[in-house]
């Protein structure tokens, strides 16, 4: 028990200690690229709390969430169709696997060429890029639903809607969730890329602008904020996932014991 407490405290203390060390080491820094952490934190507060909160942070987050929502819903729906209709699967598989291999960031210039530099471009890029991980995971999840569960649905004459929503969806849930988590990471990356390539608003755009204008503490403030958002979004996802898929964790724990 003592060992566990020690490990826990190591886990919490180490990141804190590292930040403290960074603070101390950079305190009197004259290096242009690595200014004092204190200066960075000052700019962080000035920029994001709450000056550019509405105009840039909320803007970026809104694009992210919108694109992500479209991608995941479309991914699950198309995934269901692809998984359950053999002809659809045979026809779409090659196209899907080709498109998913394109580095997501490369889609941004495509969309810029088609619909310009506006918000639509950003949301569309995010949505298309984030579509594929969820889509592919949904197909995999549904294809690997236990045949016994399918037989149970048939024997008890569940309606088609019940089969899809009450059996297939929860059964494929863990795999769909994994895909959605990757989709979130892809969406985040493309959000930043779409802003850096073609925008003057948004956290990514501001960070790049700061770098180009040699406003280094501002750049660092942007990097830190992006890091916090990336970490935070993933954390929220994990918490939600663990809540909704608690049954899965429980059953696997028992299976492995």
């Amino acid at each position, binding site marked *: 028990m003592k060992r566990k407490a020690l490990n826990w405290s190591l886990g919490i203390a180490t990141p804190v200690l590292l930040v403290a060390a960074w603070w101390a080491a950079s305190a009197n820094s004259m290096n242009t690229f690595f200014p004092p952490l204190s200066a960075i934190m000052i700019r962080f507060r000035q920029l994001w709390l709450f000056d550019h909160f509405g105009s840039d942070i909320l803007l970026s987050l809104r694009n992210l969430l919108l694109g992500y929502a479209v991608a995941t819903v479309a991914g699950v729906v198309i995934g269901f169709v692809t998984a359950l209709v053999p002809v659809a699967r045979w026809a779409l598989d090659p196209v899907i696997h080709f498109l998913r291999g394109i580095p997501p960031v490369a889609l941004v210039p495509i969309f810029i060429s088609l619909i310009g530099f506006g918000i639509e471009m950003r949301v569309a890029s995010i949505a298309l890029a984030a579509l594929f991980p969820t889509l592919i995971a949904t197909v995999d999840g549904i294809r690997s639903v*236990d045949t*016994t*569960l399918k*037989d*149970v649905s*048939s*024997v*008890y*004459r*569940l*309606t088609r809607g*019940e089969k899809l929503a*009450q*059996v297939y969806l*929860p*059964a494929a*849930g863990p795999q769909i969730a994994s895909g959605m988590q990757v989709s979130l990471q892809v969406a985040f990356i493309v959000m930043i890329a779409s802003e850096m390539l073609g925008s003057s608003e948004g956290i990514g755009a501001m960070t790049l602008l700061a770098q180009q204008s040699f406003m280094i503490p501002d750049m660092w403030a942007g990097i830190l904020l992006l890091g916090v958002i990336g970490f935070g979004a993933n954390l929220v996802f994990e918490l939600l996932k663990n809540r909704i898929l608690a*049954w*899965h964790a*429980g*059953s696997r724990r*028992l*299976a492995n014991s």
Partner: protein
Amino acid sequence: MTVRNAAAALPRLEVTALSKTYGSGASAKCVIEDLTFTVNTGEVVCIVGPSGVGKTTLLKCLAGLQPVTSGAAAIDGRKIDGPPAEMALVFQDYSRSLMPWLTVRKNIRLPLRHLRLPAAELNQRIDTALEAVGLTHAANQYPWQLSGGMQQRVAIARALAYRPEILIMDEPFASVDAQTRFELEDLCLKIRDDFGMTILVVTHDIDEAVYLSDRVVVLGAKPARVLDVVGIDLPAPRDQISSRALKEFADQRTNVLSMIRKPA
């Protein structure tokens, strides 16, 4: 000594010249060939046979999960063409047949949703089923939190709540320990007595078949054929200790076993 009343011998499930072949042409594999037998209302009939003879395939055909190649199975004269509404199936692999994301209670409830029952009746059926299998205390647990025997009881409760007229069970007690097996066998008889169900059990355990059945269908050889249908004349109600101690029990057992053991 009571024998099941012959007047009640109304055929419920009739299997006529049932055959099942997988594949076609050169790679065709005939699993079941020309099976004919009948199950009467309120009977417990066990199907026994050597391992791998095709008992599970037969059940899948009867449950409408697979199409038959020739011949037919019929309920009350109506040909089985897909999962019949009056039938429920208890699977051999109980842990895989229960939905791990649902509690015991919700698992039992799942097949009842589309029956559109009033809420009171719905809950009453679930409660009755849980009580019949002795799992009222576990209603809010998840299947994977329960032992193997309890999981199988959940599957049985699910079938019970569905109120089928014909209950088919695929080697239901094969993977539970001996003590639990005896409890579940008695539960099976109790269900037949309380609910008047017609029950068809596939088992490889001859003792179990003799204990449970009114009649035993003996399958033999690959592809499977009906070797004989044996009437079991043991007195009712059956009891694990006294029934199994009867001389007739041993006789019947030997009879069935030798039929299976006989070289094809």
